[in-house]
């Protein structure tokens, strides 16, 4: 048993549902107790989905516990087949059904005799894999199902597309800025003269999966979802894949160069160097931003980074390599992928932390007192408590991280968005600097009085002036500590002497 009240990655079935419900016309049936369909709420609320989430529960209740599901699961599958006519029904086990050990495979076989739709059992173990791993597994499983089906029927298309083409693998529902990234990647491919063959799973039809082998290569933008499917396709069809996340100027260039190498090996003759150069220097603003005097002020500022492998690694590299920011530590909660992460970021930060424990991360932030945090919603709240700004770069996320406006993290527009995010997260450099020089906004005594109205203590002029010399980001804390000290000792007016006595008493 483990004492916990926050987790970074969800349970396995969430991963399966994210993949299955990303496809068009695929319905998931959860073998679960009532109340476990919280995924539907997340889809409907976070993604503001206009459609009913294609997920229903085949409920596990007392009767099921006593007698087994018997006909119930099969009935629910055949019923959904009639009501919604999906192409595929994915029977999704949950933690509950994992321990009931019912023969779900058998239900699937029985149901598929009667249904027009295909029926599949998601092959995930709740106690061994998390949301992200399960999503990866499920995507591979669905791809494999339809490739094998087509192969059996003999209608697997022969050969490759005439022009260089790509499958984009891993764009999914409830993924961090996935929709925007997808648009940006399509745009990038268009710029490079590469046809997009298929995008999976988001918005894809399972009928098109047999066309996957027609692409020249696969692009897997995220480390967490899609690699298994890409490896399967490599193994079956010798399809090469690119798993360099095009996030940040340098990595985007590296990704494009890798693509160039692959398609030239496949018979194309392209040279993307001019494109990369032009984008980097003149179109994307990120390289120019790095050179500008704004970014100069960020030099050597301390930051920490935490998130899933993809985003934490990409952000660490951007901060250290492209902006000259000092990343004190970088971390990920993808423990199963720790080796890769360490290798990617080791040279760009002082320390690497791999943990699923939010308490440990909170302490690590408090310990290093960075000027900015780049993390998940949990780190944002730690930042609030410690009064340190935070840019959210990875799931778990809230509704505000599903913006309506166009905010990709990938590709060249992504580099612009990230530059904005980073810059806005640090207390605006020049403003901060000026505030320190001129002792804050509050130069008029009368305003100062107003702001401290909640306290029964008066600050005399000298002490107030001294307080104003304290850098903005710790001034509130110094003020509170001093007032507490004064109240404890029975001082009515805070003088410079009291102020320094207070400072000494806390050993600062």
């Amino acid at each position, binding site marked *: 048993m483990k004492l916990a009240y926050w987790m970074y990655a969800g349970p396995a079935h969430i991963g399966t549902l994210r993949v299955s419900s990303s496809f068009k016309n695929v319905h998931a049936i959860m073998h679960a*107790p009532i109340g476990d369909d919280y995924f539907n709420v997340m889809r409907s609320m976070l993604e503001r989905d206009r459609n*009913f989430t294609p997920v229903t529960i085949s409920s596990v209740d007392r009767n099921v516990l006593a007698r087994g599901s018997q006909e119930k699961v099969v009935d629910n599958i055949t019923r959904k087949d009639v009501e919604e006519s999906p192409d595929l029904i994915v029977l999704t086990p949950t933690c509950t059904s994992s321990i009931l050990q019912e023969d779900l495979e058998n239900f699937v076989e029985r149901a598929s005799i009667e249904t027009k739709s295909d029926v599949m059992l998601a092959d995930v173990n709740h106690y061994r894999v998390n949301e992200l791993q399960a999503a990866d597994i499920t995507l591979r499983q669905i791809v494999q199902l339809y490739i094998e089906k087509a192969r059996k029927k003999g209608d697997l298309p022969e050969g490759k597309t005439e022009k260089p083409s790509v499958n984009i693998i891993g764009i999914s529902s409830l993924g961090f800025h996935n929709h925007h990234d997808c648009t940006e990647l399509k745009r990038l491919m268009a710029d490079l003269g590469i046809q997009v063959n298929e995008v999976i799973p988001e918005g894809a039809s399972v009928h098109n999966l047999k066309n996957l082998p027609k692409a020249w290569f696969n692009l897997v933008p995220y480390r967490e979802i899609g690699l298994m499917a890409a490896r399967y396709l490599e193994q079956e069809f010798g399809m090469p894949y690119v798993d360099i996340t095009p996030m940040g100027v340098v990595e985007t260039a590296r990704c494009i160069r890798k693509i160039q190498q692959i398609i030239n090996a496949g018979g194309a003759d392209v040279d993307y160097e001019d494109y990369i150069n032009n984008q980097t220097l003149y179109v994307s603003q990120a390289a120019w931003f790095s050179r500008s005097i704004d970014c100069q002020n960020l030099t050597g500022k301390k930051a920490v980074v935490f998130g899933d492998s993809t985003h934490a690694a990409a952000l660490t590299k951007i901060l250290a390599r492209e902006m000259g920011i000092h990343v004190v530590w970088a971390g990920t909660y993808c423990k199963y992928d720790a080796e890769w992460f360490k290798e990617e970021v080791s040279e760009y930060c002082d320390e690497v932390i791999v943990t699923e424990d939010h308490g440990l991360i909170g302490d690590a932030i408090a310990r290093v007192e960075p000027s900015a945090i780049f993390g998940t919603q*949990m780190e944002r709240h730690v930042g609030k408590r410690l009064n340190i700004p935070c840019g959210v770069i990875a799931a*778990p996320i809230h509704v505000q991280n599903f913006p309506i406006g166009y905010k990709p993290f990938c590709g060249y527009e992504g580099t612009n968005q990230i530059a904005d995010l980073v810059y806005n997260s640090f207390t605006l450099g020049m403003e901060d600097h000026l505030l320190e020089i001129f002792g804050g906004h509050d130069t008029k005594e009368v305003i100062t009085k107003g702001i401290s109205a909640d306290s029964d203590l008066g600050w005399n002029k000298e002490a107030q002036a001294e307080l104003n010399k304290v850098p903005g980001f710790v001034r509130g804390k110094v003020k509170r500590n001093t007032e507490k000290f004064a109240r404890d000792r029975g001082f009515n007016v805070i003088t410079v002497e009291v102020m320094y006595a207070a400072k000494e008493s806390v050993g600062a």
Partner: protein
Amino acid sequence: MTLANTEPQALNFECETGNYHTFCPISCVAWLYQKIEDSFFLVIGTKTCGYFLQNAMGVMIFAEPRYAMAELEEGDISAQLNDYEELKRLCLQIKRDRNPSVIVWIGTCTTEIIKMDLEGLAPKLEAEIGIPIVTARANGLDYAFTQGEDTVLASMAARCPDKAPVMEAEKKERNAIASLLNFGKKKEDVVVEESEYVKHPPLVLFGSLPDPVVTQLTLELKKQGIKVSGWLPSKRYTELPVLEEGYYVSGVNPFLSRTATTLMRRRKCKLIGSPFPIGPDGTRAWIEKICSVFGIEPKGLDEREAQIWASVEDYLQIIRGKSVFFMGDNLLEISLARFLIRCGMTCPEIGIPYMDKRYQAAELALLEKTCHEMNVPLPNIVEKPDNYNQIQRIKEQNIDLVITGMAHANPLEARGINTKWSVEFTFAQIHGFTNARDILELVTRPLRRNNSLKDLGWDKLVKEEAKI
């Protein structure tokens, strides 16, 4: 068919497939840990439970809540680890970090299936670590959403002291709460205060409500000379009310049937079966019933109720004549429907997860009476509804307002159907005369919002679905 109207209709009860969306009952920790200030709730379950709590509770999770998951790992499921030792380790950690007055173990689906004997382990561990441990099986196998509170309160009922602490002879208070409330007052004041009440057997109310609502309802009864001796739950575990044999109890929420049963059978209390104090009509009926049991003539209720109705007339104008459909997920549905019908709405269907016809008998009777008086058809009460079928019915019946869970709200809105999230009724203050306006504020909000958008032609925001 011409004869159909000669007899008064009776309510029609149906039961569907149970394919409906609701919250898991473990969600009760979210409001109960806030209500019982010295408690700590430990949910013994899996990542699935944790993920639900984390997401459903939103920002509350960041406020260092007094609840946590005991997350079961593979070793726990296969009994490679010893349940008792594991729970002891975690509970000692909780004791060290938070030092609560009670730890509430919430059993989940997983502990049911692997048959972890929480009720058996608790007394042993309690003796060993010196903190009371209350167990409640709030799992999705058996219960829906608010019923979680019912399981917790039923267990708490067993912990209420059965004898008023012995006081000095001159003190007349019957229980600890009253003495606490009177703390610091002079003896004479207490006597004066006592004289404001009619002499009646002790009354304890059950159901967790926000403190302001507790005060409002307590004062409402005080106006009739009725003294509330205690409240289950109270603000602190250490202040649980005394329950002696023969005490009277009354429920304030419709989902507390197990608690009611426990109070009657185990604690030998007498249950006052009444409609629930939701809406001015319900509040009045609730007070009248309690008065009648104690042989008190209620005073001033006519004016009080009329005054509330008059004060919400602006809201009534918006909903009068409109139809409302409850998809059902929190068991407040019967009371809310009864109130909204009194407000002038029609209600073809009330979905509800579970219908205890005995515990809700008075509420059902009031619903029936209200329908007759308002001259509207009686609603179908659908237990364990099937959401898919319900959506077909909503489309056919052209419903003006659907009260539903968050899984269906946005998809229905996109199809031009007004919705209100049912969960809000669980967290908003809806009890008593004072809060009638708050219920109507919630109910009318979608109608007011959509009214201001109505000229934009943005009703249907999905393309017609192809029928196959």
